[in-house]
């Protein structure tokens, strides 16, 4: 009995000590910590915050699920951002006319079950997602009218309208190619239990909400895979994911909170890498005459009153980049003159408000989601505080995401709302579609005839250079008109064990074969 009592007391005491330690400066307390063990195991373990949703590549729209899928399935081509499109399953392609693209398929590619890849598999895959309205990715592929098979290794994709972003659509979420024969003979249920692709790693085992294990596919057309085994673990709690990294339990941990960066970097054997993502956080403002924000001077004053760099430095601890456009580098049509740029001049903001007749101050409502994006509540609070400095009284509305989302769909916000948009298409045209007169109706009510014309022309312009100019010009005008005021582009922070080399991708995919042992 005494021993038990002693043990209890020690445990409680130890907990209290641990709790007190947590409040101190992390950098100083962690320095004496044991270095993380490293090994040369050929198993790569990666921790995500959620489990994959499904092996149905067309019926999810989660980046983290796709990040796993890209190790099992191949796209026809990959989008390398500034390096353009690179061949993957397709060897070459050409744009025959406005609506037709012809592809040459790589020969000798086999699926994990031994079947050979042919143009029929491509037809089966793309027509499925283009035609089945219930699939979550349908909206991004319904531009495809049909796929015509010319021979085993040659096929044409015909689009409904001229589609300049066709290659972007074919090199993103859901673009993997599926085995037609396997799925048609065995059925979808078998495929979802025992998925088969062409990628460097094949399915081994999936324990939901725990781990997915893949193993090397020796017949991979790209050569021998880098790792014998990949383990994708699902660890929802941030601090647990960090602890797994610190103890060597995982080699890679994604979505590290900015507050844990110092702790990881001060521990031997592990470190963090930061890389930009496609997500840009912004304020969307009403521009109609009935709103106070309808006056361009008020919108400019709001922009000038907010110190975005300070928010990146304090709230995100540097894990972000200020920008004056939503289309960041690596996207077709990005206007890089507006990137890494920000305006902050509270003096001028006060003057502008004075000129606009709001010298005595004005009041407006800012709505933001709570818990959807990294530090969203804090950002909205900081924006409100900065606006009040120049005489704008902000009625803050912070609401839970599903309620926010409902109002977002109804376009029912007051003067301003805070939101973050991603961009899996890597193309400016789709990124700006809420700023055409039609897209903005009821939301920002932004209606600039020139912007509208440029954006509509770019949607179907098959001349890449001219199209790029149209999109860049539109961004300039938008930056001046401010129907959206951009705060910052979010960075992804990834923790890695020093036994490996890892380069994060802008599209947040995890290509295990690009990770090497140190």
């Amino acid at each position, binding site marked *: *009995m005494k021993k*038990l*009592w002693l043990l*209890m*007391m020690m445990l*409680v005491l*130890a*907990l209290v000590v*641990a*709790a007190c330690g*947590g409040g101190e400066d992390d950098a100083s307390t962690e320095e004496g*910590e*044991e270095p993380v063990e490293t090994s040369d195991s050929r198993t790569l373990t990666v921790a995500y915050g*959620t489990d994959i*949703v*499904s092996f*149905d590549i067309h*019926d999810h*729209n989660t980046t983290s699920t796709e990040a796993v899928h890209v190790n099992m399935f191949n796209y026809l081509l990959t989008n390398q951002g500034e390096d353009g499109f690179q061949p993957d399953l397709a060897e070459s392609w050409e744009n025959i006319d406005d609506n037709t693209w012809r592809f040459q398929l790589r020969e000798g590619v086999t699926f994990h079950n031994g079947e050979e890849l042919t143009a029929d598999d491509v037809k089966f895959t793309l027509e499925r997602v283009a035609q089945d*309205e*219930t699939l*979550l990715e*349908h*909206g991004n592929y319904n531009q495809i009218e049909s796929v015509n098979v010319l021979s085993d290794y040659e096929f044409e994709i015909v689009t409904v309208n001229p589609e300049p972003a066709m290659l972007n659509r074919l090199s993103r979420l859901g673009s993997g190619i599926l085995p037609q024969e396997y799925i048609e003979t065995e059925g979808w249920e078998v495929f*979802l239990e025992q998925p088969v692709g062409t990628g460097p790693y094949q399915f081994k085992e999936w*324990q*939901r*909400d*725990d*781990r997915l294990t893949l193993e090397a596919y020796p017949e991979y057309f790209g050569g021998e895979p880098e790792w014998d085994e990949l383990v994708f*673990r*699902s*660890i*929802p*709690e941030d*601090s*647990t994911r960090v*602890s*797994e990294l*610190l*103890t060597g*339990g995982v080699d890679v941990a994604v979505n590290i909170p900015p507050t844990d960066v110092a702790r990881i970097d001060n521990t031997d054997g592990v470190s963090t890498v930061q890389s930009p993502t496609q997500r840009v956080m912004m304020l969307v403002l009403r521009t109609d005459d009935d709103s106070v924000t309808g006056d361009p001077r008020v919108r400019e004053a709001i922009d000038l009153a907010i110190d975005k760099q300070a928010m990146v430095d304090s709230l995100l601890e540097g894990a972000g980049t200020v920008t004056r456009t939503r289309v960041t580098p690596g996207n077709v049509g990005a206007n890089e003159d507006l990137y890494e740029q920000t305006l902050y001049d509270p003096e001028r903001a006060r003057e502008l408000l004075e000129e606009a007749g709001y010298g005595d101050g004005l009041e407006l409502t800012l709505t933001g989601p709570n818990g959807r994006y990294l530090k969203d509540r804090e950002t909205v609070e900081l924006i409100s505080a900065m606006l009040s400095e120049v005489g704008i009284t902000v009625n803050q509305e912070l609401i*839970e*995401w*599903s*309620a926010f*989302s*409902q109002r*977002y*769909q109804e376009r029912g916000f007051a003067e301003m709302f805070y*939101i*973050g*948009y*991603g*961009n*899996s298409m890597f193309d400016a045209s*789709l*990124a700006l*579609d*809420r700023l055409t007169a039609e897209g903005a109706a009821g939301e920002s009510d932004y209606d600039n005839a020139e912007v509208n014309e440029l954006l509509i022309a770019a949607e179907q312009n098959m001349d890449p250079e001219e199209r790029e100019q149209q999109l860049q010009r539109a961004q300039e005008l938008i930056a001046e008109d401010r129907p959206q005021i951009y705060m910052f582009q979010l960075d992804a922070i990834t923790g890695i064990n020093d036994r490996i080399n890892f380069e994060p991708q802008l599209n947040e995919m995890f290509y295990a074969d690009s990770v090497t042992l140190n």
Partner: protein
Amino acid sequence: MKYMGQSLLKTIPVLLLITLIVFLLVRVTGDPVSLMLPETATEQERESLREAMGFNEPLAIQYFTYLSDLVRGDFGDSFRYNTDALTLVLDRLPATFELAIASMIIAVIISVPLGILSAVKRNSFFDLFITGGAVLGKAMPNFWLGIMLILLLSVTFQVFPVSGRGGLGHLVLPAITLGTGIAAEMTRLIRSSMLEILGQDFIRTARSKGLGEAIIVNKHAFRNALIPVVTIMALQTSTLVGGTLITETVFAWPGLGQLLVQSVNIRDMAVVQAATFIIAIFVILSNLIADLIYRFLDPRIKYD
């Protein structure tokens, strides 16, 4: 037997009410379509998905469709996983049972000796320390305790694995996290229950006929003190379920709790409904079992 039959009959309206409440709650709190599609989706995409999933039907019709499927054992499909919701829930039960049983064992191991000791040595330093510890144990939130245990025993001393489900080592930290609160509650209860019994006449009689203190405490007093404890243990089933939601998330334990949290977050209605239904059945069953154990502990209790 008759009592059992009646009790089981009574659970039917309870379960019906639970299905209705859960059904309405998941629908009132948000539109799953808005959570499934990204911010940039068009109205048309949202509308066609809503139509495809049957969310455009009136609520009453949706509920009756759900009930009639339920009677046939069909809980619907998870739209996140695209598979049968009930299978998903049942697949998670072993992991959750494992955790729940381990926590209960830890709770009993801690609370029974401490509760008795604290009653026997009433108002001593031990008593003060144990009751103080019980208050602390009850006050510590699961998520905090879990994170602290990980930091101390996994990161600093590297005794136990951080997270996941595997060998016995993986079970220790989550079981302590979940068991501590229950142990605290049970310790206090055993103490007060023992104190009450120890003051009763039959104990004085036992003492006066010269029985050893150990026999008095362990045989006469403890067995009688157990009756309220069993009630609390049965009621702890719901605390346990609530605790698994947090504990499983902190420790990445692939059980029912984590499934339910994630399903609620994305409004995966079929899974939320199936999981709460199964949990409700367990809570009702554990209460019934507690009733039966009373009879065993105290033959004077009759239910006719």
